[in-house]
């Protein structure tokens, strides 16, 4: 879908968010997950005409509310006060998730612990003994949107790849991720093939050495 590119430096968080924002098609209905994905909204342009969905029952979500605009009845999925934009609508929880599960959202952007080469996603539970599990809307979002994109660091603190052959963390959704944005590279996933669209601060060859899976290079 795109020509292979490379940059000298790794991407910082804002640069990643800016690239994700630019990749969102004009007029799309989008759900941005909690954490890094939320930052994408700061780089969407008015000309794109993107409508943001929040799982707790709203389309047309605006920026975070400040000062007198803070309203305890108007919050996002992270329970942060937000604002409404012209054209906004409210609906109950079953409708909100039917909208998601029914394939009406164009793109959803999520964080992840791991993604497999088949597009399996792990982002809800470390599986660590004693950890209290919480899932929220993660499983619904993962498999609901037409396209599920992930933003994550490519390596763990100890340097292991989070893009893996098979998940070691508990599954959130199977075969659902089609693109991964990381500080070091951007990947497209399709039918078990992982194609590197760009590298940042690392060459394709070095990347191929460090990752435990086969990589294709975008033309």
């Amino acid at each position, binding site marked *: 879908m795109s020509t292979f590119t490379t940059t000298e430096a790794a991407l910082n968080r804002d640069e990643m968010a800016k690239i994700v924002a630019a990749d969102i098609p004009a007029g799309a209905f989008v759900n941005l997950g909690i954490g890094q994905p939320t930052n994408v909204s700061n780089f969407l342009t008015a000309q794109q005409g993107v409508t943001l969905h929040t799982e*707790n*029952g709203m389309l047309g979500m605006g920026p975070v509310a400040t000062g007198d605009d803070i309203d305890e*009845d108007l*919050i996002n999925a992270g329970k942060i006060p937000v604002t409404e934009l012209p054209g906004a609508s409210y609906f109950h929880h079953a409708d909100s998730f039917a909208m998601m599960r029914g394939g009406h959202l164009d793109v959803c952007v999520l964080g992840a612990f791991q993604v497999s080469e088949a597009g399996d996603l792990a982002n809800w539970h470390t599986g660590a003994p004693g950890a209290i599990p919480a*899932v929220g809307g993660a*499983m619904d979002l993962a498999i*609901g949107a037409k396209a599920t994109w992930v933003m994550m660091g490519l390596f763990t603190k100890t340097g292991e790849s989070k893009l893996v052959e098979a998940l070691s963390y508990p599954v959130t959704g199977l075969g659902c991720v089609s693109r991964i944005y990381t500080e070091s590279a951007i990947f497209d996933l399709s039918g078990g093939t992982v194609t590197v669209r760009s590298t940042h601060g690392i060459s394709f060859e070095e990347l191929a050495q460090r990752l435990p899976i086969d990589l294709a290079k975008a033309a």
Partner: protein
Amino acid sequence: MAPRIATTAAEAVANIHDSATILIGGFGNAGQPMELIDALMDCGAKDLTVINNNAGQADAGLALLIKERRVKKIICSFPRQSDSWHFDEAYRAGEIELELVPQGNLAERIRAAGAGIGGFFTPTGYGTLLAEGKETRVIDGKGYVLESPISADFALVKALRADTHGNLIYRKTARNFGPIMAAAAKSAIVQVDDIVQTGQLDPEVVVTPGIYVDTLVALGGKN
């Protein structure tokens, strides 16, 4: 039949008994029927099964019911939060049972109960720990999990305004679970800011028709 109109939150929840199953509205604090939950605390009912998206925040509402060990089981999607310390303590002590449900399945299970659906196949959770032991089916090449409805003895719901027929309107994202919970309970108890005369709510904007509402209490409010 028109709903019973209670004069206080205490009167509204007076019929809630030990071992009751209770749907409690709200997503975080938005739409959480705080005054009804406080009244439930005061009425003393225990061994409750509670369905809510979360497991209480800080030192208010549902968190206090859990702190007092009045909830024997909670069905929710997101118990662990930075301020869910009362749930965390009860859970680690083995003093509360947790049924964790993906949020959309939670909503659909509640909706199904109110709609008379005996079960449904959902793609959410397929192939995950939360589908273990559940019936699955592949339909048109896609995996689905059989989920069952969640009905309840009572629902505690917060809406913005009611008319004396029990028709409800909500406010912004405080609507969340309110409409589906009102429909799924044998007895839906709704707190509103104010109750207007029948005919004062535009039928075109009613969100929850009064057929689902059993008890109303007007508590005033800043909106």
